[in-house]
């Protein structure tokens, strides 16, 4: 089972899906769905269309450099079949995929941190400017009062006896 990549959006094309367009210079364009095929026919550049993988990688939205991508690289040299190697490979695939997803998640979180900081700054500025709009009674810094309760040794012994 060969899994191809869509020419336009770079998503995985599973067997039985999509359209294969062959140009007269024998270059093959595979599309995962009609959406990608129509965009190609409209001569749209995938680097400029925001939902494609090409755009996301180009604008730093997705990870571009990672050691996990090396495993996914296409190799045209055939390997001699070995059952043990195949078994280990299949185990490794799931593990590497898991690692890549975790790193991707981390990358996105790191990327969004800057935006959150900026948003916080904006909120603080807005609050500073429009502080007079709040009613007088509302206090911004709510102080938590700590209540200390003293328990004598005698009381604890009585509780234990009851139990």
């Amino acid at each position: 089972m060969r899994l191809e990549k869509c020419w336009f959006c770079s998503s995985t094309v599973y067997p039985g899906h999509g359209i294969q367009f062959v140009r007269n210079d024998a270059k093959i364009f595979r599309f995962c769905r009609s959406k990608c095929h129509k965009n190609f026919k409209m001569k749209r550049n995938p680097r400029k269309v925001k939902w494609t993988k090409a755009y996301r990688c180009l604008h730093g939205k997705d990870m571009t450099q990672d050691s996990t991508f090396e495993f996914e690289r296409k190799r045209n040299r055939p390997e001699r079949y070995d059952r043990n190697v195949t078994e280990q490979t299949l185990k490794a695939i799931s593990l590497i995929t898991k690692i890549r997803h975790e790193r991707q998640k981390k990358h996105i979180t790191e990327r969004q941190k800057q935006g959150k900081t900026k948003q916080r700054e904006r909120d603080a500025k807005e609050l500073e400017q429009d502080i007079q709009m709040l009613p007088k009674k509302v206090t911004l810094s709510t102080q938590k009062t700590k209540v200390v309760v003293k328990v004598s040794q005698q009381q604890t012994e009585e509780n234990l006896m009851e139990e």
Partner: protein
Amino acid sequence: MAAFLRSKCSSVGRTLMGGLGNNLFGAVNSSVETVSRPSHCDPIFQQIRTFIQMRTNLKVVDNSGAKRVMCIQSLRGKKGARLGDTIIGSVKEAQPRGKVKKGDVVYGVVVRAAMKRGRNDGSEIQFDDNAIVLVNNKGELIGTRVFGPVPHELRKKKHLKILALAEHIV
């Protein structure tokens, strides 16, 4: 009365009237208008890819001497020919001192078709243009070379010579 008003109003008015009334007159009308408008400036985008039928012009991709052939008969099916089918055509344009000349009635095998064709693996294949290779009535090639990509489905149709001479098999 309402129908009379609708007929007198402009297209915008009709749409409004249709929207206000219970029937879908305006909605249908507006949808028809949007469909009839050209979807894109590119002529390729507008062109409907269909069967190779009578009066379809095809490009000849071998060195038999013909440049352009017009289909005059499809030898398979009611609708028309598809990828890998044989057709009868009339040579409309030919090179000088070729094996065939203008006006000749020839047989040809469709090696590239712009209409989508389903494959065994469930995917679909589509080419840039409609192209044929000229053969005689026994199915033997007239030319000695085949240019451009050809699909491997021709193996099933027993056109092994075409596959052997092809530049690219896809």
